[in-house]
């Protein structure tokens, strides 16, 4: 381990429904707060779902329950910051569970650091992005390509960001994404005309997250974490 770096875990849940994956995140958070687990980064893709954050309202879902059934999209209220967003296959959802005191940032600075991580990752694909005052997230031209939304308990972070690699962007037309009417949403696929392999995106992200938060992570499974916690 390099001097001054904390060791942590990198857990890829793969494609997993939102509710059980969030239950895993809650268990990791509790273990972090109790000092039983090192910093942990959780990755996942979800089957189609609209999540409504604490600043959100169902009024920002524009389609009827019948349309949602036809699209096969669930709806769930969650405790991250922010309004309504879409999660689905092809979108990478990443939740770093770190202690703000360890990374030397307050919650606001941490949120913007996540944006920096995403901008660096997208720059690796020659996608030029920017931040927009008053509209958190990462933008390519006039379109949002990645969203951020976090929660903090006892100084420990959870939730994080979602990056559109190659999701079905049509689903965003059924909502006011992040509560903003007619907001344009993009993806790596839409910008480049092709999507990089998800495994490659995750690998690049791991390196950037580790450098940004001065940590090294070991790739492990949720089952291994669970066994560790139950010891």
């Amino acid at each position: 381990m390099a001097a001054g770096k904390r060791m942590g875990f990198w857990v890829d849940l793969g494609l997993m429904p939102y509710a059980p994956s969030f239950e895993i995140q809650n268990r990791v958070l509790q273990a972090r707060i109790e000092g039983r687990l090192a910093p942990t980064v959780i990755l996942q893709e979800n089957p189609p779902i609209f999540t409504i954050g604490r600043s959100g309202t169902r009024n920002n879902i524009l389609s009827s329950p019948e349309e949602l059934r036809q699209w096969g999209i669930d709806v769930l209220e969650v405790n991250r910051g922010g309004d309504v967003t879409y999660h689905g296959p092809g979108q990478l959802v990443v939740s770093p569970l770190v202690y703000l005191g360890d990374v030397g940032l307050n919650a606001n600075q941490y949120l913007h650091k996540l944006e920096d991580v995403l901008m660096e990752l997208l720059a690796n694909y020659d996608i030029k992005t920017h931040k927009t005052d008053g509209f958190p997230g990462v933008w390519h031209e006039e379109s949002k390509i990645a969203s951020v939304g976090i929660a903090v308990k006892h100084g420990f972070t959870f939730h994080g960001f979602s990056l559109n690699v190659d999701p079905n962007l049509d689903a965003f037309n059924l909502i006011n994404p992040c509560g903003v009417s007619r907001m344009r949403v993009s993806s790596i696929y839409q910008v480049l005309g092709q999507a990089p392999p998800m495994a490659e995106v995750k690998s690049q992200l791991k390196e950037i997250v580790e450098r940004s938060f001065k940590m090294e992570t070991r790739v492990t499974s949720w089952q291994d974490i669970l066994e560790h916690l139950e010891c």
Partner: protein
Amino acid sequence: MHYDIEIPPTADGALEVTIVSWIKNEGDQVSKGQDLAEATTEKITLYVTAPAKGTLTKIFVKVGSKVKVGTVIGSLEGI
């Protein structure tokens, strides 16, 4: 012992947050670290937790109100 319940200093002190829910009510017994309230900015949810075991004696700030980080939003009488 009396405790002030504050919006946690995990965000910029100038940041304004909205109280979105009180998870506990006045008169409720709580244990140390238990969630009492949720406050949110546009993209950040902050949990306000009990500083000690005791009784939530007073809620000063109602749901929907905007306050700055560090503001005392309630009081707790420790056991």
